């Protein structure tokens, strides 16, 4: 009897914590899906740029706009409790994400700005500058990864 009460009590006490961890696990999965979508847009842009697909150059605007919008939500994807070892789901986010939030915001802003610049470049028809502008978006991805994403 005493044991049953103890077990019941601990279930009641622990349940909210477990639920919370589950929710955080969901969030990490969502976050990774968001990053995968960015990877898709980057691949699409580079396929247009490098392929014999000149007539699709205008699509780069759509992909760049998508990256710009996504960059804006990146900082919301790292609430407390979603770090490495805090849920059952693996994450490659380094503790620095939570230790240096301003720098993380800056890195996301950089992606937003370079993507906007890329879209603008295509709109203005400056095809010559494309390769360099796409490169700048890529640098924004890489710089953030060097600082905030663990390599595994």
């Amino acid at each position, binding site marked *: 009897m005493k044991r049953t009460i103890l077990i019941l009590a601990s279930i009641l006490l622990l349940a909210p914590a477990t639920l919370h961890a589950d929710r955080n696990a969901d969030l990490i999965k969502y976050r990774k899906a968001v990053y*995968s979508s960015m990877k898709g847009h980057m*691949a699409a842009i*580079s396929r247009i740029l490098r392929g014999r697909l000149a007539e699709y150059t205008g699509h780069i605007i759509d992909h760049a706009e998508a990256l710009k919008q996504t960059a804006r939500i990146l900082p919301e994807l790292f609430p407390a409790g979603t770090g490495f070892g805090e849920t059952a789901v693996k994450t490659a986010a380094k503790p620095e994400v939570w230790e240096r939030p301003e720098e993380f915001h800056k890195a996301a802003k950089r992606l937003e700005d370079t993507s906007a610049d890329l879209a603008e470049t295509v709109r203005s028809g400056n095809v010559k500058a494309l390769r360099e502008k796409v*490169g700048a978006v*890529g640098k924004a991805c*890489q710089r953030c*990864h*060097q600082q905030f994403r663990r*390599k595994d």
Partner: protein
Amino acid sequence: MTTHLFRWGLAGLALLLASGLHARTPNPIAGERIFNAAGGCGCHTAENGKPLSGGRPLKTPFGIYFSTNITPDPDTGIGGWSDADLLRAMREGIAPDGSHYFPVFPYTAFSKMTAEDVLHLKDYLFTLPAVQQSNRPHDVWFPFNLRFSAWGWKLVNFHPEPLLADVTRSKQWTRGRYLAEAVAHCGECHTPRNGMGALKADWHYAGSREGPEGEVAPNITPDAETGIGQWSKDDLTYLLETGMLPDGDFIGGLMSEAVEYYGQLPPEDRDAIAEYVLSLPPVQNHVRDPDDLNE
């Protein structure tokens, strides 16, 4: 740009004066190209450290080595080195004091460099800011901590051979082989090592679970399943230019640092490297634990 030229000009003048009778014309511009092909000698720059001042920990199965200061500081760097000193270090693995280097310094690759390129590289390094920072002793287990063990290692494993001309290959391929094998030393990370830490010849570029800093360096032979056999030449060239993988993700780790410099090479050098790497014999070798992938 002008300040760059000015700096080079000054450094060039200084070199000319210093080398006196043995005057050769310094060529830091050619040297910068070699420096970029060598991935900016990134192992010599520590996290948050001053460029090329050393102290970066390089984890190996034998312990931790710390890279050295290669800035032109005369006391703690290579500022006091003669041309002959650098040639001997890079191509024979021998320090100016006569001691032998551990193979963590990839002289096994650099031994294939032309003397001219080594000296141009020196000209370029000598234009960069000098940093005063003493080298940190290595932290490796017995008996690898003993300098003469480096000598013994070389006796068994180091047989420098120049890259022989292959008349059946194009000029581009030959340039690519030179850059990849002698200068960029792709194999130092991408080729697995035997128990003595020597590169396994039959597993050239087939990937290593124990790359520098304990990273996995993937199989980059053109094996369709476990290597980069599905990549086009342009995919590889674009990776070397930008760090982007064909799927839109970006490489990380030491490779991403090297790419910052590969990206500054003339495009024909990246094309040449890609031509060579994709011509290698495919080797089937799984190095990535599927569990470790992010996806």
